[in-house]
């Protein structure tokens, strides 16, 4: 256990530059890939079992094989670098520290898909990373790794940066495509899927940064070897963004299958809970996935140790399980108010709803207001049922999954922490005056 394929060499001098990246084995996968058929590359990715690392976990090779190939119509690869799921910061970390692994992955993936023009859609707030990537792209052009006849292979590719401007919804692939076309980021009704009609009505594949980067080790080591890493259908390594009340927040690359308990308490990873406190709950895969209390995040309902894998984290469905999602792992200690944290998340979804679908546009706002009643000490027991009712009327009734992303955290918080909502009902006024019993980080001395 413990192999790293993406961030293994960040301590190497100059790894951010082309020369440093090449000195540590960079662009060997590209040389290998350019000697393969595009179909063979797709086959290797299928064999690797790689699943989308942005959150949905859809098999990447299969997604690639869906791309339509009408003659004479250009195809595009778009890298989704619009990382904005609360709790997730792995893509920013990877792009900043090792931009060329993304560029190399973009070239190989574009070649496999038959795309000659590809885009990296990065969120506008990460403007400094945008400049790092533009520099890396220019280095690649200067070394004939981009442009015409790449390394004498006859393959032409242009990669362009595109910058967003602050909208969570543009991380949804059709919202991202609309935004790339210069419009508001309103997600599209599917079908048609982007693989058939994407940006400018052309066949398009949208992949997450980490997914595209993972193609590099897959080509280097072969899909079969990559599939041996991990556990079951959760193959390979995954970047986990760890945040909240832990001793060592940061980005960790794990082999899928590490026990959750080890991930939280081992000094190799999160290093346990800060200030000797006890853990209360974890949001394991970015703010959208169901929150789990300590006993259910460490062990499944059957009493088996919970593992950091797609299957184990979702064991028990939404009744007792959660999701790996984007790998945004948010840990909360015993002083955290679940209700106030939920209000914060719900306000986020209300702010970020694009407004197209009424259940999401209105429902997120209602949930935020009802939750505010709890915090102000004005809520009644019936408001708990009202919240439950609203979230159930959003889920599954919207064009894009933002509806679910807003509904699931509410459902899970009520399911696992109902007594806290009740405490706000009976004693909310006092909680408001004294404290929201959420942790105040000691900002004076941090």
């Amino acid at each position, binding site marked *: 256990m413990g192999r790293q394929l993406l961030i293994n060499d960040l301590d190497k001098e100059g790894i951010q530059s082309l020369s440093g990246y090449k000195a540590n084995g960079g662009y060997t996968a590209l040389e290998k890939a350019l000697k393969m058929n595009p179909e063979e590359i797709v086959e290797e990715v299928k064999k690797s079992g790689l699943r989308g690392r942005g959150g949905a976990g859809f098999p990447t090779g299969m997604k690639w094989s869906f791309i339509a190939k009408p003659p004479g119509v*250009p195809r595009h690869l778009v890298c989704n670098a619009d990382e*904005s*799921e*609360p*709790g*997730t*910061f792995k*893509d*920013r970390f990877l792009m900043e520290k090792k931009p060329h692994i993304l560029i190399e992955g973009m070239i190989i993936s574009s070649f496999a898909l038959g795309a000659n023009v590809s*885009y990296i859609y990065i*969120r*506008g*707030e*990460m*403007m*400094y990373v945008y*400049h790092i990537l*533009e*520099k890396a*792209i220019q280095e690649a*052009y200067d070394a004939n790794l981009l442009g015409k006849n790449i390394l004498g292979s006859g393959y032409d590719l*242009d990669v*362009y940066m*595109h*910058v*967003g*401007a*602050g*909208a*969570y919804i543009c991380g949804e692939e059709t919202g991202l495509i609309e*935004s*790339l076309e*210069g*419009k*508001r*980021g309103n997600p599209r009704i599917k079908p048609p899927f982007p693989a058939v009609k994407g940006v*400018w009505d052309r066949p398009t594949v949208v992949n997450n940064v980490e997914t595209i980067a993972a193609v590099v080790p897959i080509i280097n080591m072969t899909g079969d070897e990559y599939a041996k890493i991990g556990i079951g259908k959760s193959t390979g390594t995954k970047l986990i*963004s*760890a*945040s*909240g009340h832990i001793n060592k*927040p940061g980005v960790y690359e794990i082999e899928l299958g590490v026990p959750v308990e080890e991930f939280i308490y081992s000094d190799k990873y999160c290093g346990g809970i800060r200030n000797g406190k006890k853990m209360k709950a974890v*949001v394991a895969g970015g*703010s959208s996935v169901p929150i789990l209390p300590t006993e259910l995040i460490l062990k499944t309902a059957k009493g088996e140790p919970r593992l950091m894998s797609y299957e184990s984290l979702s064991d028990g469905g939404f009744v007792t399980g959660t999701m790996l999602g984007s790998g*945004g792992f*948010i840990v909360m200690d015993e002083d955290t108010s679940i209700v106030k*944290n939920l209000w*914060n*998340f719900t306000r*986020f979804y209300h*702010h*970020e709803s*694009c407004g197209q679908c009424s259940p999401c546009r209105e429902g997120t706002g209602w949930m935020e207001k009802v939750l505010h009643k709890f915090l102000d000490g004005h809520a009644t027991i019936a408001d708990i049922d009202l919240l439950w009712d609203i979230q159930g009327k959003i889920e599954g009734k919207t064009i894009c999954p933002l509806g679910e992303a807003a509904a699931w955290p509410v459902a899970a918080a009520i399911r696992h922490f109902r007594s806290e909502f009740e405490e706000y009902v009976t004693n909310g006024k006092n909680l408001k005056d004294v404290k929201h019993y*959420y*942790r*105040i*980080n000691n*900002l*004076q001395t*941090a």
Partner: protein
Amino acid sequence: MSDNKNIKFSDEALALCNKLMKRYPEGKQKSAILPILHLAQAEFGGWLSAPTMDYVASILKIQSIEVYEVASFYSMFNLKPVGKCVIEVCRTGPCWLMGAEDLVKYIEKKLNIKEGQTTADGMFTLKTVECLASCGTAPMMQIGETYHENLSFEKCEKILDDYKNKGEEISHYRKERIKNQSEIKQ
């Protein structure tokens, strides 16, 4: 259309606009709207006035309404005047767990303004924003393109004092980058 006469990009910014528009297929230059609005904010005082947006529409050869509807959708675009330095404090979940709420209160007290307001001297505007993908280094704030992370009150005070002493106008898109485009050939 408003009167555009006084609004014109610098030659360097215009050259960059032309490069940006060439990144998209012919006839699809509207795709460059977000990057060009970022440039406009950097060039025209940190916000987008109606005449500025009309000017951008004329560059992209689209209707003004197409620019308005986009500019009003994305949270990084300021549709009202702002201070020289816009402080954007992350308020979402993981930052909140680490004390973002107290940080906002601290800045409000220090600058004697409320969230969304600008100081009387026109130096600072305080905004709260959603998750900036910096959860492992919370709490944090962004000023221009710079992420200021792992903040304490003292650290925050020093950072704000430094900006105030320099007194420069800061934008998301680096202004030196517009002047020196040697790394942007495509």
